[in-house]
Structure formats: structure tokens, C-alpha cells
């Protein structure tokens, strides 16, 4: 059967997410948040999720909807601070002991996800040595410098935002939309991309920014506007 990864709705794309799944969510700096898919996951209702997302709370992201809805048991991120002086929904639940938090340096976060998709179980990095974020982690010297051992992050599902897709799942990105998405797609057992448009013809290899073999479903979704917009 011809490969065709297009699905009709965001709801259909995430219909089979299971309780307890580890879910990657792309997006950084306001670009690349899969807000349509996040909202669909909110409505789908899977609980006990581990969310792997750069910011636990970002004003352009809808991740907070999953958190407020009690669907999230754990967050792995590099930024867990709400913008305002008031505590964010995440901060309230974290302080109450209802959400577990792992905070990593952003480059370690990105590399651990890339490693998860690349068959690398662990790697050494100079980042974070001697800081609170690597407490208890193995430190080892190579050529006179200290490095910390960091483990790969793998997951069940990745939710991405991209610009366009084709039936094969090949993706293009606008400007800074890609950020963590390509690495997340490789580290997840299955990946859904929401896009502005699906191209009628295959995306030429010169324009494709992520091979479709990493993508399982693509769906058109208008950017869901978070509160900040």
C-alpha cells in the first residue's frame, strides 16, 4: 500500500496515547509549539504522562493545559519557572509534590534526546560539572578536564510543529521552528507532526529538513493561540 501518513484531525492523531506515556513536545522561544496536538492530547485525556519539553511553562505553549488538567506526573525540561511572580500551574503542582521534575542544562537536554534517537545510551559532557544539576552523577576526566556522564532520553510519542509535510512524513520548517523537534522525532517510538499545510507532491530532498521515516502521522492544524497571544 502506498505510504500515506496523513490523518484528518489532531484528535485522531493522538487517539491512542496511553496513560503513563513519555511524550516529547517541541517548541522553543515561541516557535514550533504543537499547540493543536497538545490541545488534542488534553481532550484525549491520557494521564500519568512524563512530558519532555524545554519549558514546563511557556507563554506561547499550551503545555500548561496538560498540567492544569492533572495529566502530567513528571516533567523533564531545562526551564521550569513561570514568567510571573505568581506561581504557575506547574510550580504549584511541583511544590505540592504532585509533579516530579528533572531539570537539565538545555544542551544536555537536547543531546540526551539526540542520543536517545541515535542509539547512544550515555555520553560525557563538560556542562554542569560542579553544579547542583549534576549532583550524584558520575564525573570522569578525559585529557585533564572533568566531564559528567549523562543518559539518553527516549520516549513513546513526540508531538511536533512544522511548516509543511508530505504523504511520506517528510517535513519542512520555517525559521526557528525546528529547535528540539528533529531530535525528539528520532527518540520517540512514534511521532506526530502538525503542519500548516500538506504538500501535494513529495517534498524534494533539497527542501526536506527531517526524513519522513521518523514521522508516523501528519495533520494540518492552524496554530492554536495560547493565552499570551
Amino acid at each position, binding site marked *: 500500500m502506498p505510504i500515506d501518513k496523513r490523518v484528518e484531525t489532531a484528535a485522531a492523531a493522538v487517539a491512542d496515547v496511553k496513560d503513563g506515556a513519555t511524550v516529547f513536545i517541541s517548541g*522553543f*522561544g*515561541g*516557535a*514550533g509549539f504543537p499547540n493543536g496536538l497538545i490541545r488534542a492530547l488534553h481532550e484525549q485525556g491520557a494521564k500519568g504522562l512524563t512530558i519532555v519539553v*524545554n519549558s*514546563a*511553562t*511557556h*507563554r*506561547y505553549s499550551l503545555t500548561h493545559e496538560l498540567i492544569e488538567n492533572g495529566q502530567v506526573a513528571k516533567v523533564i525540561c*531545562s*526551564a*521550569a*519557572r*513561570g514568567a510571573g511572580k505568581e*506561581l*504557575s500551574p*506547574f*510550580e504549584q503542582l*511541583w*511544590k505540592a509534590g504532585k509533579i516530579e*521534575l528533572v*531539570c*537539565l*542544562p*538545555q*544542551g*544536555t537536554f*537536547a*543531546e540526551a*534526546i*539526540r542520543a536517545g534517537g541515535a542509539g547512544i545510551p550515555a555520553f560525557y*559532557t*563538560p*556542562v*554542569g*560539572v*560542579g*553544579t*547542583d*544539576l549534576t549532583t550524584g552523577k558520575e564525573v570522569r576526566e578525559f585529557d585533564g578536564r572533568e566531564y559528567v556522564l549523562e543518559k539518553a532520553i527516549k520516549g513513546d510519542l513526540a508531538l511536533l510543529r512544522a*511548516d509543511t509535510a508530505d504523504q511520506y512524513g517528510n517535513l519542512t520548517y*520555517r*525559521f*526557528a*521552528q*525546528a*529547535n*528540539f*523537534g*528533529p*531530535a525528539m522525532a528520532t527518540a520517540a517510538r512514534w511521532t506526530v507532526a502538525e503542519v500548516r499545510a500538506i504538500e501535494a507532491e513529495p517534498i524534494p530532498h533539497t527542501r526536506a529538513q527531517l526524513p519522513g521515516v521518523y514521522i508516523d502521522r501528519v495533520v494540518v492544524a492552524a*496554530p492554536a493561540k495560547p493565552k499570551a497571544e
Partner: protein
Amino acid sequence: MTKPLNRRQMAWRAAQDIEDRQLVNLGLGMPVAVADYLKPGLDVFFQSENGVVGAGPLAAPDSIDTDLVDAGSRRITLRRGATIVDSASSFAMIRGGHIDVTILGAFEVGANGDLANWDMRVPHKGPLVGGAMDLAACARAVWVIMEHNTRKGEPRLIQACTLPLTAKRCVTRVFTDVAVVDVTPTGFVAREILAGLSAADAQSRTGAPLAIAPDCRPLAAPDLPDTD
């Protein structure tokens, strides 16, 4: 005594030390203003952690593109020759030592170059580290822009950091409102001090021994309006 530098003047002063053709990463807050004050004729690329290599000025209000942002979610433009990579590649660039200079804000800098800039231990607020540890640990030069003292007058240049560290022994230069201080193997060395501020005054505002460079000059900057 000359008036201490305001925030834009501190950014201006830091900008004067950027050299031609460098690849520079500017932290959130004061450091991003450095891009406005490069010496004329320099051709510099600004990298942002989200993968933009060649960030240009902020976008005009009528040409904002919500997908063209920097790591601080600012809507930006691209300079000539700019490229964009994904996050894993962006931090490969940072961690691999390809950033010539990063300029960061800070709460404290230790006499050994230790940097504390990511966690003020704000009660109940979540941690926010972002890319600071990667930049501080791996850029070829790590410079800091910060007020010389806290609002309460406590020194920020101190013998040993009290706040959680961002990276150990990484800072090589600090631009404050009253001095330019190098962090050397023997500790702090003032390269410039605000005109009218004596060496003893500068020392009294510093929490660790502050040597004075033989060629120490007056710190000066053009008039610039402060940031909001």
C-alpha cells in the same frame, strides 16, 4: 566621581571588546543590548541557543514573524549569511567550543572565575537554567555584565560564590557599572575603573582582593539612555 555606567553603557563597554569576525552569543537581559554597540566596521555573527546563527536586529512591528525568534522569544531578523540549525546542532556548536565569546548576566562571580547566574533561590519558583550552563562551560571566552554591587550594596565580585554555580572557573572578564575586571589565575584585576573612583574605593566595593593593572585606565562610555 563620574556617574556609574547605566545598563546600556555597560553593554556599550562590553561591545568595545568584541573583535572582528567573532561568533558571539548574548545572554538574556543586558547582554542582548551589546549587539547595538559594536565598533564600526566589524562583521560579527550572533548565535542564539535556539539555532539561529546570524541573528539580526529586532523585527519592526509591522514585519514580525512569530517563527523567527531568538532564545529569548524576541521577534528578530536575520543578518546576511545567516543560517538556522536545530537545537541539538546549536548546542553541539556551543558545547564544541565554536562560540568565540558569550556575554552573560550574573548574580555573582568568584575570584576563581566561578559563575552563578541561574538560580536566585527564589522561594517556590521553579528552576530555570536554559542554555546558561552550556554557554558558561564551553564558550572560548565568557564575559559577564552585571552591577558591581547588589541593591543592598553587597559585592557581586566575591572570593567564592554563595549561590548555585552555573559553571566553574569560566569567567574571564566582568563589565560592571564602575569597572572592567579581568579574572586571572591570581584573582581579580581591574583593567578600568570609573574616573574619580579610587583603587581603595573599588576594592571596598569588591568582595575579594582586587589588583590594579599597571595600565589601568578610566572607565568611560558615551551618554546613552538607560534601559527601561
